[in-house]
């Protein structure tokens, strides 16, 4: 189950990583980046049924409402989350959040510190003043009515914190500033799709009417029978960027592929819930591929078919002796797809 928790954490970390990335500016000194001062925060809205809900504010003017959960049965299980990124109409620096989640809800909260303060030194490789985190409660009202009624609540706020970080000079070891103000980048799949070490990997993506859908099903070298299946859906709606993710540790039989050197290559994918149905991949002559079947998914507030000719598909089955790093999802990704280009390779 450690693996499940790790991947779940990685998915959640996408938001945090995106938030951090948004703060950076080009460096002034060779080999150094200047990271501007920033205010970030979080609100824990607790649990509603099977869901953990809360707010993450990566900057003064962006709020991300998230709903997440996990289901575990024996050594199998899955993680799912929805993230809604919106602009904050007030200033978090002044302790205020006011945002509209389209037709789904509103957030109007004000921070009340409880006196607890914690200072943190800049991370390794950075120079500057320590950040200051104030703890307390956000009070006011947060309401939400999830798509298709998957979740309803009206809450008076919850425990939270605000962190003020100061201008830092950091060694230029990682690229930054990927989001450039785009809300979509805050909820993009990013490292959620890290596939390093997979020796069999099937993926399907589509970009249709502003909605990006990406699925990967991979089997890691050395691991027991079964496959890890991940899906990320990214779309913009009513001034929101919505990212939906799910991954499951599928049981034996989830992913079956032809072996290296077999032509035409083929595969079947039959993951457990929240997926349903089965898909068949087959390489055809003239570099064509078919992706057919009944595969679909029931995510929070969204039911989607996941097969059809609109999907771009690829299958990678490697001999681990010949390629030590496994299949590279990003290398095969078409460059013009709507997903933020190669975000994952930078964040992972």
């Amino acid at each position, binding site marked *: 189950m450690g693996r499940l928790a790790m991947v779940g954490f990685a998915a959640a970390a996408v938001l945090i990583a995106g938030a951090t990335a948004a703060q950076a500016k080009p460096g002034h000194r060779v080999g150094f980046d200047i990271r501007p001062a920033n205010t970030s925060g979080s609100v824990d809205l607790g649990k509603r049924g099977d869901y953990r809900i809360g707010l993450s504010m990566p900057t003064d003017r962006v709020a991300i409402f998230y709903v997440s959960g996990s289901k575990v049965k024996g050594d199998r299980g899955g993680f799912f989350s929805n993230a809604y990124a919106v602009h904050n109409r007030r200033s978090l620096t002044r302790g205020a959040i006011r945002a509209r989640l389209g037709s789904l809800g509103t957030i109007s909260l004000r921070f009340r510190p409880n006196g607890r303060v914690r200072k943190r030194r800049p991370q390794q490789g950075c120079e500057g003043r320590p950040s200051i985190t104030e703890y307390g409660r956000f009070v006011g009202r947060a309401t939400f009515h999830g798509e298709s009624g998957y979740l309803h609540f009206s809450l008076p706020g919850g425990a939270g914190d605000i962190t003020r970080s100061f201008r830092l000079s950091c060694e230029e070891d990682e690229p930054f500033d990927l989001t450039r103000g785009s809300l979509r980048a805050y909820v993009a799949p990013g490292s959620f799709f890290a596939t390093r070490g997979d020796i*069999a990997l099937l993926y399907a993506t589509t970009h249709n009417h502003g909605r990006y859908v990406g699925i990967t099903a991979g089997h890691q*070298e*050395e691991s027991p*029978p079964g496959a890890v299946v991940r899906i990320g859906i990214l779309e913009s709606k009513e001034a929101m960027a919505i990212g939906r993710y799910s991954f499951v540790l599928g049981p034996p039989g989830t992913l079956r592929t032809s072996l290296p050197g077999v032509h035409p290559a083929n595969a079947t994918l039959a993951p457990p819930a929240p997926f349903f149905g089965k898909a068949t991949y087959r390489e055809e002559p003239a570099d064509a591929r078919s992706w057919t079947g009944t595969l679909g998914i029931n995510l929070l507030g969204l039911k989607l078919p996941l097969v059809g000719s609109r999907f771009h598909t690829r299958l990678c089955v490697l001999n681990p002796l010949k390629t030590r790093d496994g299949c590279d999802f990003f290398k095969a990704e078409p460059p013009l797809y709507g997903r933020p280009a190669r975000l994952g390779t930078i964040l992972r």
Partner: protein
Amino acid sequence: MRLRCVAAAALALACLPEGAGAAVGHDWPGRQLTRIELEGSNGYSILISSDRKQHLLLQTTKEGFTTEYRTRDALAGPYRTKATLPGLGSISVRFHPHGPARRPPAFAGCVGPRPTVRKGVVRGAIRFVGERDYTQAVTHEAPAEIEEWKSQRCRGGANPEQDGPNLEEWTSKFSAWRPGIEFLARKYRPGALEGGSRVLYLAETAEAASEFASFVIYRRATVLAPTLTFADAHPEHTIISPPPPFAGTGTFVRTPESVFAWEGDLSIQFPGTDPLPLTGPHFELDYCLREMGCIRQRLPPGDYFQSR
């Protein structure tokens, strides 16, 4: 001589701190070993070794089979050895030296005083009956010797008891392991092994035959074979058919789920035991090509306990 060396090495390793043998420039501790050589029934050779740290090893060998019975409950003095091998026999002897002590050459790769070897006989009672009577030895007197050496300083990789060719020079190898059982196949370049053979097969088991593993039985079989018995031209579909004492065939194959499976009816029958299957789903697998790397298939975490 080789038998003596192997037995001594086995006992020596049991007394060393973990990793000591692999250290660069390590100390090989001084010790005193009593060795008794016997002839068992059915053509088996029996070697009994004991040191002064309550370790006793009784080793039976015949052709490619070796069975080691190790106890950590022996009583040992300078010239006295006493031990019980539960259900298999007992040893209670006293060493009587004959003639002057000998000073063999120093160990290769090591610096330290030369060892001392004192020949003689042991007198008392030795009774050993192997499982299902595969061999037995009952005697009141047997030739023996005591070898003693002081601490040795050995260069990296050197081992006072090392003997035979360097078996690490393989070109490809396969191993299947589960708690208590290991099967190994190694392919070598022409000329590395004796008799024109190019593949070495080894099966080994360990069985704790008493509480707290103070009495452990190791069974080992080795055999050399021609290269065609290890068909790994397609590493993801390797067929292994070792000659007797092994029986049957094992196949290392990648399944449509990209799991590497170890299938077939390969087995081995050690002296005094039932045939032991060497294939199945509960083995951890490694296939390695020296120039390219390894394919590994790990056990699910629960299998480390279930397969015991």
